């Protein structure tokens, strides 16, 4: 007998997705109905996930245990905030978009739950297809270009991932993570690992598979940029953690050093590129590459504690990315620093929120961004990679230079023109309140979240 309670949240998300689609067709003019359904469904899913925290079990290719629940909660929360944000942003926009938000979420949750590479691949495809649609859903010349690029890169990377999976199947004979243990250091296995790391690299965008990211980020509407930069990355990291830690341990000396190298490159190149960037969205794109680099440090260390700190890091990261883009959209939907000039006095509250968010992205106390880096790098030092931690900290110091340009534009420059986004934006404001409160709370009392997370990892 299958225990349906186990999959409560996933089923709720699926049901909500179908309902939003139905209502998107029935009530074409009323964009708010599907949005509200999505919000209610997501809150319900989050609640279910929370209450069934200790409920774990396995079904075919799915294994649910507290650690995946933590990741699912991050993903649901991220999507919920994005939905809040989008209801204000796409007021007239396509109401189908929430359906794709939810299918994307479903794919991500399955990816976190999966213990079989085939299911993981299908989940990745579900994510990719949802994102393909979302990226191209508003048609402007720039977003068309962006969606084409995204589609080409996405399908290319999927096929590379599939190739890697195939090679592993050839030598391992089985795709369950825990049976990949049989895999040894044959050339085919190594090739499979390389393909896998490459394919997933496109999804998480670490160096050197990130060249497409800024172009796509720049071309799509801001909430979509927020979506692309936040939750899917967290989901793929969930996959990587389980795949590497349970499956490919035999090859660990190989991928640990690879990830260490990729981490260094991502941090340094991402930061340097972000430094030189004058476009806000492209800056955020490069900086999200740098963040991927920080997270990869955990893979170079490969200890349970390091992976727990990744989960903690991703909670902050997802919230901050969504919050940063939401705040900028609130002020003025723009990608130029100049357009933010002098808005600090006009919108005091949002400006303070944005300042907190960008300080947190930099990693300055008392914010969650600081504690997240502290935990992560502490595990790096504990795992014997002081060098990576040092590079990480120096890079986050450098990141102050471009992240703090946002508060600097808000406060330190005189206004350029008086055009301001008007209108009621209570939902974006809600998003910002949630993000800032959580981030400050995690900055001062990080243990209240980190300890539960840590207890869930195996």
């Amino acid at each position, binding site marked *: 007998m299958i225990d349906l309670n186990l999959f409560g949240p996933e089923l709720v998300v699926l049901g909500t997705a179908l309902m939003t689609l139905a209502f998107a067709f029935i009530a074409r003019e009323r964009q708010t109905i599907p949005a509200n359904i999505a919000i209610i469904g997501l809150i319900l899913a989050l609640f279910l996930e929370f209450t069934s925290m200790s409920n774990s079990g396995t079904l075919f290719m799915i294994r649910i245990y507290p650690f995946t629940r933590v990741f699912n909660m991050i993903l649901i929360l991220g999507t919920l905030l994005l939905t809040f944000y989008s209801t204000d942003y796409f007021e007239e926009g396509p109401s189908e978009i929430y359906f794709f938000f939810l299918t994307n979420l479903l794919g991500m949750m399955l990816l976190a739950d999966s213990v079989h590479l085939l299911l993981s691949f299908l989940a990745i495809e579900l994510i990719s297809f949802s994102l393909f649609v979302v990226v191209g859903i508003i048609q402007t010349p720039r977003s068309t270009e962006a969606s084409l690029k995204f589609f080409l890169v996405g399908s290319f990377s999927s096929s590379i991932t599939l190739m890697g999976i195939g090679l592993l199947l050839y030598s391992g004979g089985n795709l369950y993570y825990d049976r990949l243990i049989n895999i040894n250091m044959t050339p085919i296995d190594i090739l499979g690992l390389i393909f896998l790391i490459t394919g997933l690299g496109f999804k998480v965008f670490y160096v050197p598979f990130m060249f497409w990211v800024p172009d796509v980020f720049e071309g799509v509407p801001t909430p979509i940029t927020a979506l692309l930069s936040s939750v899917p990355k967290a989901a793929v990291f969930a996959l990587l953690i389980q795949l590497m830690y349970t499956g490919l341990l035999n090859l660990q000396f190989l991928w640990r050093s690879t990830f260490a190298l990729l981490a260094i490159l991502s941090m340094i190149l991402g930061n340097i590129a972000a430094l030189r960037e004058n476009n806000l969205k492209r800056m955020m794109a490069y900086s999200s590459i740098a963040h991927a680099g920080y997270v990869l440090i955990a893979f170079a260390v490969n200890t349970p504690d390091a992976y727990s700190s990744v989960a903690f890091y991703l909670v902050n990261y997802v919230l901050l990315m969504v919050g940063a883009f939401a705040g900028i959209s609130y002020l003025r939907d723009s990608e130029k620093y100049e357009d933010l000039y002098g808005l600090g006095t006009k919108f005091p509250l949002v400006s303070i929120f944005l300042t907190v968010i960008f300080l947190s992205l930099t990693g300055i106390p008392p914010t969650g961004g600081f504690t997240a880096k*502290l935990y992560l790098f502490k595990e790096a030092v504990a795992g014997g990679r002081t060098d990576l931690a040092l590079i990480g900290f120096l890079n986050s110091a450098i990141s102050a230079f471009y992240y703090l340009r946002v508060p600097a534009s808000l406060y330190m420059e005189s206004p350029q023109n008086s055009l301001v986004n008007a209108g009621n934006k209570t939902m974006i404001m809600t998003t910002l309140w949630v993000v800032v409160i959580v981030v400050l709370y995690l900055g001062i009392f990080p243990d209240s979240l*980190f300890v539960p997370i840590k207890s869930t990892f195996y």
Partner: protein
Amino acid sequence: MLNLIVFLPVLSSPAIPLIKSEKRVFHYTLLVTFSVFVFSLSLLKGFSVENPLFQWAQTIQWLPQLGASYHIGIDGISLLLILLTTFLTPISVLASLKSIKSNVKGFCGSLLVLETGMLGVFVSLDLLLFYFFWDLMLVPMYLIIGIWGHERRVYAAFKFILYTLLGSAILLIAIIIIRLKTGTFDLIEASQNMYLIGPNLKRVLFLAFALAFAIKVPLFPFHTWLPDAHVEAPTAGSVLLAGILLKMGVYGFLRFNFLLFPDITSNFASFFMVLGVIGIIYGALMSWVQQDLKKLIAYSSIAHLGFVILGIFTMTPWGLQGGILQMFNHGISTGALFIAAGILYERRHTYSMKNLAGVAKVMPIFSTIFGIVMLSSVGLPGLNGFVGEFLVILGTFKISKTLAFFALLGVIFAAVYLLSMFQKVVFNPAKEKYSTSDLTFREFFVFFPFLVFIFWVGVYPKPFLKLLKKPSQGIITKVTTPEVKVIPDQPEDGK
């Protein structure tokens, strides 16, 4: 009590947006900072100068997972610096009453957060807590320089925060390594467990701490952020930057390098003494050639901080007490000098000494006070600067006569550049006639407490030195006791 003092400023800042008129915001901030000052005076009452331990100490569990706790406490050194902080903050609010016109609420809010950060640094006895406050105070300072500063403010603000963040990145790594090796973030426990760390790693850690603090002081090769930040900051920013923030670097040396690495500190002492002397000479020479009043004061800070570093690294009772007292003196004299420069700027809108000339005729009262402040910075006997510098040189003389000679040279240079500055600004004939009002009552009230301290420390420094006696004795015993002697009673602690 200590908690109240540290957190009162930040906790009272959320009320600022609720206040309607900007004038009221200033009054409110003034009220808060002044009551913090009054509260901090009450620390003196319960403080015993004979007690070598940390007083008003308190430990609350904070992050058991990481091993960090909320552990605070003060000794004589931190008490002196806390008093300096709580004293300078209301003064700098008072001094900004006229000069800060835009976004007053933001300014007062930043100032309050800044005060909490500064006080937090001086009370923390936990490495992570210390780091927490150390970085916390960067942000409001960055905003104060960047929003309310002069023309090149954004550049200066970025330079300030980047230098400090790079230093603190290294500091944080060192802190984490200490945590992993000694098993605790707690300063006192860690200092007892330092024997667990090998000598080579210890040296690296010492240098990491020293680098972060040297940037803050700033010690000679790391000083380049200071002139920019000081010159571009608004008056309140310069006062607090010179008065408190620079002291945090020295305080870091005293509290962390000396306590955690006593043996290595004494190995490196002569190196830092030489750097201190270079700072004295370099700062003096640079001040000499400045045409800009604020830049001159900024470079003179480097020279003064050179004295402080020289003094504390002599590791003699005189040198240490003199160095620490000199920190306090520098906060007073340089703070007053910056306020004087700010007052001139408000009236004449320039810092150029050529254009400022002829102040004596139009502002006699101001000129008198300015003269006293300037002389206290020179180190005239009977004023506060003399006591500190004299003790430092006395201490240095016991260690190295050459260094003492160069330090003395620095004193003479200081007299030269400060007196010539005074002549240019106050006595030189004005290029064209102008008239401006003398000090207002508010401005006089700003200066008055400075004058009290200048004469008090100059004539009767005993109460201040008494405060510093035990802590500096503690440092000297720590440094001069070979580590081997400390180890035997450790195992009971460790197990």
